[in-house]
């Protein structure tokens, strides 16, 4: 089953890549790596989400905000499932602006689990002034980007069988930095990345390098590993209720399948005395 899916995916992507018009114009389709949370039965790997959080915290968060995620989400079922104390400790590690107090002043205090992740910049303009571009918020990034498009996806078929490739897109951009082709020179301070949608020149410098994150569980922090982990983590931040959704989906489908059969039998019994 898995193998069949892989072969089909490979073929479809090969067909997409083979299209000369696409290769000439747009970005490369994302590398189709597989994740534990794909398919109707897929669930997140807690360890991977926890590692992905480490990457977000130690690398991405210095420029990218994650404004829809609250610290408490990290401890909720279906996510990285950090323990209560871990969540409190993570939150307390951030300074949060609160207020106004009795004197009418805003003040800084350590974060609480109910707070959202503070953004690294107060607004888009500040980010742009400091970095040269406004880095997108990461909460929804894997739902807001499609890894592949083209003729098939216009029929919704690619999406139906292979998903939209959002996490794969994040992975591909993170691992897709290359030396610019000979003779091509991009704008000052930009980097060559053929997977970048609005590219191929991207303002973000290659963010990952081997060993730059220290994983708590001792996993070796290669660029590939970190890109997988953080893209999985961002798949969770975009769709934090995925596991609950799929679980309820099976309950609903089983219930409705049985109900459909019963209703069919009732209908048949009722109609048995009428020629129709």
């Amino acid at each position, binding site marked *: 089953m898995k193998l069949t899916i892989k072969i089909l995916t490979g073929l479809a992507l090969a067909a997409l890549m083979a299209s000369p018009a696409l290769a000439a114009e747009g970005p490369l389709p994302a590398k189709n790596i597989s994740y534990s949370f794909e398919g109707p039965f897929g669930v997140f790997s807690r360890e991977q989400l926890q590692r992905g959080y480490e990457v977000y915290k130690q690398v991405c968060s210095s420029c990218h905000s994650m404004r*829809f995620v609250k610290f408490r989400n990290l401890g909720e079922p279906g996510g990285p499932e950090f323990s209560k104390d871990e969540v409190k400790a993570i939150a307390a590690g951030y300074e949060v602006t609160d207020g106004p107090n009795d004197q009418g002043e805003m003040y800084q205090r350590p974060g609480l689990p109910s707070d959202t992740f503070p953004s690294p910049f107060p607004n888009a303009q500040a980010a742009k002034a400091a970095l040269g571009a406004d880095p997108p918020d990461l909460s929804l990034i894997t*739902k807001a980007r499609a890894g592949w498009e083209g003729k098939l996806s216009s029929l*919704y078929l690619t999406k139906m069988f292979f998903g939209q490739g959002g996490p794969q897109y994040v992975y591909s951009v993170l691992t897709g930095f290359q030396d610019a082709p000979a003779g091509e020179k991009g704008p000052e301070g930009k980097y060559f990345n053929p997977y970048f949608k609005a590219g191929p020149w991207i303002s973000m410098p290659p963010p990952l390098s081997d060993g730059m994150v220290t994983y708590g569980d001792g996993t070796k922090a290669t660029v590939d590993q970190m890109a997988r982990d953080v893209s999985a983590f961002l798949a969770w931040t975009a769709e*934090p209720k995925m596991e*609950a959704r799929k679980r309820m*989906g099976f309950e609903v489908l089983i219930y*409705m399948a049985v109900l459909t059969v019963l209703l069919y039998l009732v*209908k048949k019994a*009722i109609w048995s005395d009428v*020629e129709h």
Partner: protein
Amino acid sequence: MSGHSSYEFKNPVARWLDSRLPILSVARAQALDFPTPKNLNYWWTFGGILAVMLVIQIVTGIVLVMHFTPEASMAFDSTEHIMRDVNYGWLLRYMHSNGASMFFLAVYIHIFRGIYYGSHKAPREVLWMLGVIILLVMMATAFMGYVLPWGQMSFWAAKVITNLFSAIPFFGETIVTWLWGGFSVGNPTLQRFFSLHYLLPFVLAALVFLHIWALHVPGNNNPTGVEVKSGQDTVPFHPYYTMKDLFAIVAFLFVYALLVFFLPNLLGEAINYVPANPLQTPTHIVPEWYFLPYYAILRSIPNKLLGVIAMFSSILLLFVLPWLDTSKVRSGTYRPIFKQFFWLLVIDAIILGIVGANPPEGSWIIVGRITTFWYFFTFLIIFPLLGLLETPRPLPSSISDAVLSKKKTPESAAAPAE
């Protein structure tokens, strides 16, 4: 078939109420005893399915509104608040957004069923025209609903669609400014769309009531297109069609559940998870799938005003279909040539949808123009001519006759083998 039923309620309270307001006897006559042709096939279950979808949309919508903030700087965030913090908010929102798709799927099947079996013909023209109004109101409602989450595609769809009105000569720009409530799509646009998106479903409910009323005057059409001749031809709506419809409804909801729980974003656009940004136009602006055929018609015509006119006429044509389809025979079953043009029209509509999903470049333009032409050609030339030129197959003398001969066919086919 309306008015007082002769039924006497045994319960004294029921009798007391019914003699003052005959709501019970009307309900009994119209919802339970209503004589319905006994040969309706499963294509006829989509009416009931649509009623259920309308109720689902209204109920999920009302609860969503309890948590949603229709203000340009908060709409996107409050949608995410629903997805993340509201108990089962993700379920409500995915039901509502995919519910719109399932609603349109059902309504398109329902309309094509009507065309095939001649349900638009006398004496059901008003029933049919009410249906076309329902389609138009549905489209307006769905469009305005899509704008509410205030993502990139919401914003730019609003801009493109409202801009269509600028094609109107002389007053175009003024009308667009009036629609927007400003000089660009902005907060006033969002707030009025929200208001109308909440209002129109109740207008729809009222129109559906009229639609059903208009249905209950002549009664149902049926696959033979032959009118009911005697009590032999009908069964009471309950339990026969209540159970048949219920079975079909639950089967339909099964497909709906597949989308909601396992492919909730299949029919959406990724870019609508990016908050609206008036300064950044998306590379491809595409409407939801159910608007793609109209979008293809719009873009197939090089002139903007004519394109807009063509797009609106593609629906307005349906109003006059009862008079464009000149055949005296209702059901396509007995019209060998009509049948083929009918399926060509279905294929044409699907191709138009595919064209609408693709950028208007290269061969898509040509395909779009051919299919647009074919759409209008079918309605304006083929349907009127067919009624005059086509020789229909002989009609059964009654519904019961048709049912009996259908039952006999397998036996007579088996006869030579004996």
